[in-house]
């Protein structure tokens, strides 16, 4: 970083450092060296002083030595020729009687980043590996790693035998290799208790690379590490969890159990004194909840926002609260969220309102009461957020439309920001038939069009006015005419003008044509199938920073929100049969509730089935997989269906189509039914 007047400073420092008077006075000399380092930290280029600093390294004062070495490491790559001069001093220090000096010199020499460095450091490293002080040996082992990263194809320590290596690695206090070695003998000696927590988490990360050869070995490792799930250091607990999830990827029950056991340390980090730790804890809780939604339901009070917490924690906590709502805690959670709606920060208030809106998709009545109450506050940002929430709510759950329309109709003041305006206009256009005052509100907007700045609002207004015209032509015709006239003749924004022209020409084609084009579905209940809570299997990569690059696509089923009989029937009739298969064995003779429980275990929900031994025997089941809903019918003994006399026939319907998921589903279903058949025989 160039720094004004840097040359002056460097010149002055050089004068001081080469002044014999200063050099004689050790305290003053050291002060100048400290000054150099300070400038270096600030980003000033002081590499010109390299020669003077090398001279200063010849001292008995260890602190001064350390400072000079720090300087040399930073600038060695800029001044490779001068750095070579320093290497000699460093090599001399490597033979110093004081082990601390030896270690220091060796470490810093390995930190030099110059191409030809390896030939100089190899010999000191090998000597260091055989040093009698453990400190130096440790530095030397890390030196090997540094050398390897400088020149990946070097071989170090050819002449050091295996036993010595083992000792060295134990020295390193990370028992990586030794613990893996012992695996090959079949005896596990993970002596992790004696390590400090950093080494523990390092070893745990390292173990991620290990592939156990058998399930027995796997469970041996897991039971050895079990105690670390409850470690008082959050990072050890999480590293253990990560290892568990990774190793037990084929055993979902083990994974679930590990998640359950780690929930206590995770909750504790959510209340930790350090905010950053709290945030990380909350993010992890959110991840865990995707696979185990019920895990934190009873601890909902832990996620209430503290008054002094920074907003990033509050946002996270609200997201978690929305996800863990259930029948028991909904009242208290809503009351808590309600109290955030009047927060000083408008962003927080809006997020709280949106959170209530999310809960309203399941518990609409209570939430609508709260949201309606909030409109009474007559605060611009709150009104706007509530209207936006209403729009989303109506889209996702149409049963609340009537209540929302009544509220919107009674709402006197209108939102001022463009987001809120768009939401209100959408509601007016889409449900104009249910809001009696809709044309008058819209007229207000059309009259104020000249002062409106946002083109998005204008576009929304055009669409809403056309939609309104289709359902209430008498009241709207006049103002629609004015609106189109203004937008075509006077509007300068091209997008708005084009939209107006489009509607104008559409209307010329006739009302029915327009209706076909403009009106779409008023709500999309199938969206809620997608956005509803789904159980996702957690993978160990989730618990880390970045997302996995090559995630294997594996079929996983989940229950998700229950489907009502009516919805099922409607979907069953609407959809096409995608897959029909004769399973090749009769229906299991198990009791109805056994069958239901068994299917539930693999996340398949039973909706209905014929009781007893009635012929034909039918059962309707459904399940969810990644983003798709699978419906299926099991049939036996029907005369019309071919091949159903002796064995079960399964027909599958799906929305949206995903052949991969169907194959997975059928194989899961087959294995469960087969197991049941074996059991009951």
């Amino acid at each position, binding site marked *: 970083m160039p720094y004004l007047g840097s040359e002056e400073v460097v010149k002055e420092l050089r004068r001081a450092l080469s002044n014999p008077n200063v050099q004689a006075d050790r305290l003053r000399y050291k002060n100048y060296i400290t000054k150099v*380092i300070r400038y270096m930290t600030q*980003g000033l280029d002081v590499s010109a002083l390299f020669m003077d600093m090398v001279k200063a390294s010849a001292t008995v004062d260890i602190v001064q030595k*350390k400072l000079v070495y720090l300087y040399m490491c930073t600038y060695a790559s800029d001044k490779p020729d001068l750095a070579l001069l320093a290497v000699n001093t460093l090599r001399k220090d490597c033979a110093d009687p004081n082990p601390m000096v030896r270690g220091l010199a060796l470490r810093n020499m390995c930190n030099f980043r110059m191409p030809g460095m390896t030939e100089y450091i190899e010999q000191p490293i090998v000597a260091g590996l055989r040093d009698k002080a453990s400190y130096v040996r440790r530095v030397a082992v890390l030196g090997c790693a540094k050398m390897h990263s400088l020149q990946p194809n070097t071989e170090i320590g050819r002449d050091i035998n295996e036993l010595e290596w083992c000792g060295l690695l134990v020295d390193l206090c990370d028992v990586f290799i030794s613990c893996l070695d012992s695996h090959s003998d079949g005896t596990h000696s993970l002596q992790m208790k004696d390590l400090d927590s950093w080494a523990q988490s390092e070893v745990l990360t390292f173990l991620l690379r290990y592939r156990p050869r058998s399930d027995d070995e796997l469970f041996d490792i897991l039971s050895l590490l079990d105690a670390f799930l409850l470690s008082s250091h959050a990072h050890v607990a999480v590293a253990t969890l990560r290892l568990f999830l990774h190793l037990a990827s084929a055993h979902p029950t083990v994974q679930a159990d590990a998640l359950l056991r780690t929930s206590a340390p995770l909750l504790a980090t959510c209340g930790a*004194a350090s905010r*950053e730790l709290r945030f990380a804890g909350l993010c992890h809780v959110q991840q865990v909840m995707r696979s185990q939604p019920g895990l934190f339901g009873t601890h909902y009070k832990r996620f209430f926002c503290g008054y002094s917490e920074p907003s990033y924690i509050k946002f996270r906590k609200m997201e978690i609260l929305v996800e863990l709502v259930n029948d028991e805690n909904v009242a208290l959670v809503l009351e808590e969220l309600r109290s955030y709606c009047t927060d000083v920060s408008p962003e927080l208030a809006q997020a709280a309102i949106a959170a209530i809106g999310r809960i309203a998709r399941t518990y609409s009545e209570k939430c609508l009461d709260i949201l309606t109450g909030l409109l009474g506050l007559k*605060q611009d940002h709150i009104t706007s957020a509530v209207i936006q929430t209403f729009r989303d709510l109506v889209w996702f759950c149409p049963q609340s439309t009537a209540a929302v329309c009544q509220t919107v109709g009674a709402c006197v003041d209108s939102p001022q920001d463009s987001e809120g305006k768009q939401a209100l206009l959408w509601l007016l256009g889409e449900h104009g038939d249910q809001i009696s005052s809709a044309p008058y509100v819209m007229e207000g907007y059309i009259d104020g069009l000249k002062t409106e700045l946002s083109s998005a609002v204008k576009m929304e207004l055009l669409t809403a006015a056309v939609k309104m015209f289709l359902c209430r032509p008498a009241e709207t015709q006049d103002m629609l005419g004015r609106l189109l006239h203004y937008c075509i003749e006077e509007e300068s924004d091209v997008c708005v003008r084009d939209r107006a022209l489009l509607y104008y020409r559409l209307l010329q084609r006739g009302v029915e044509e327009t209706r076909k084009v403009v009106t779409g579905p008023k709500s999309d209940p199938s969206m809620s199938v997608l956005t509803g809570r789904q159980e996702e299997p957690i993978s160990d990569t989730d618990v880390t920073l970045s997302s996995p690059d090559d995630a294997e696509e594996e079929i996983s089923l989940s229950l998700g929100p229950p489907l009502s009989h009516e919805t099922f029937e409607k979907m069953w009739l609407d959809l096409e049969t995608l897959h029909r298969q004769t399973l090749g064995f009769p229906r299991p003779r198990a009791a109805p509730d056994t069958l239901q429980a068994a299917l539930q275990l693999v996340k398949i929900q039973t909706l209905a089935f014929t009781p007893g031994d009635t012929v034909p025997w039918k059962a309707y089941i459904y399940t969810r997989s990644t983003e798709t809903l699978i419906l299926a019918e099991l049939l036996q003994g029907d005369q019309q269906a071919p091949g159903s006399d002796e064995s079960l026939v399964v027909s599958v319907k799906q929305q949206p189509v995903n052949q991969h998921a169907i194959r997975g589903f059928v194989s899961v279903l087959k294995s469960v039914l087969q197991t049941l058949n074996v059991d009951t025989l």
Partner: protein
Amino acid sequence: MISQIFILSSKGDHLIYKDCILTTGLLVALFCLCLYLLILLQSHKGLHFIHVRQGGLYWVASTKTNPSPFTIIEFLNRLAALTKDYCGSLSEKSVRMNFALIYELLDEMVDFGYIQTTSTDILKNFIQTEAVSSKPFSLFDLSNVGLFGAETQQSKVAPSVAASRPIMSSRGEQNEIFVDVIERLSVVIGSKGVLMKADIQGEIRIKCFLPTCSEMRIGLNEELSIGKSQLKGYSSAVRVDECRFHQAVKLDEFDTFRILKVCPSQGEQTVMQYQLCDELPCAPPFQLFPSVEKDYVNRVLIFLKLRCDLPPKSTALNVSITVPVPKGSTSMSQELSSPDQTAELQPKNKALLWEIPRFPGGAQLSALFKVDVPGLSSASLLEVGPVSMSFELPKQTCTGLQIRFLRLSPTQTGLSQRWVRYVTHSDSYTIRI
């Protein structure tokens, strides 16, 4: 693996910069830009930045691999704690003055991106620089010297700043050990005075200045019970839900006698953490009886009566009460019961702040605020929302956890002073109206 470590001042100046593995130059400028967005984790070209804010400074680590964020955050916290131990206090000034010491620390703590050690026992062998204390010399340090060697009252009370000095200073070598029981209280009280939520997070923290310390025994209340079901004794048991210990703590006598055995190393460490959820063993320390009325056309009357339910001998310090007021409040007049209290309107935060420096237990204080709000409507009264309080209760633990005794065994040669301190902080104390 950590690639770089920085310490930045709040303005973004580099105080400390250490490059652990070969990385591509400084990316701090980029990081500073992101800081204002207040995001905890950022990444840029595969380099992740993780930062922690402590003592008004940003402690930043960057990494190229994919480690658990917990490891890095805890390491940065530990680094900050060690810096505090070695420099005495944590501020931009003390970091600037002791930068050589911090480089020395970092050099030993992290090598080639691997965390080597953070224990003071090991580090003290390698640290040679002496800390420069950022505090000027004060006569207070001499106040412990008794007149004619007489034992004065003052020597029995540790000054509150005693614990904030460098652990390695050669001056004033005093064999002191501090054991602090610190609890953080978070409470939500509903509109009718019902306790909605109560959590206590507590910890026992040791700050040790003894150069060598053998085993120390800390005796807790014998009737302490852990978990929901387990109850000991007949009378008021002290109960916590869950507790976790530092891995160095020996617990062989904990189950029967509630004794923790630990060999403290120099500096600060947390020996035990515990928590209690959903119920308080005593009444919540403060009860509020508010009334909010519309007075004249444009004026809101807020009458607050605050009662402190602590035992009469104890006091609460630095009590501050924040009451949200309607938007657009312009001015306020107040009637407070004593002159040491202050109140002010903060239009920017839409709140009024009432501060009480000392609040004795069992007392009741009241205050009347008249807030002028132009264009007041009845809906505006709803904006007078939940009241939040912050305070400090010295010599007080809400769980009732006490330290019975503190024994160093075998007895140290020379005098060693042991201090036990209790304090309860309000983490978040909210009362709904």
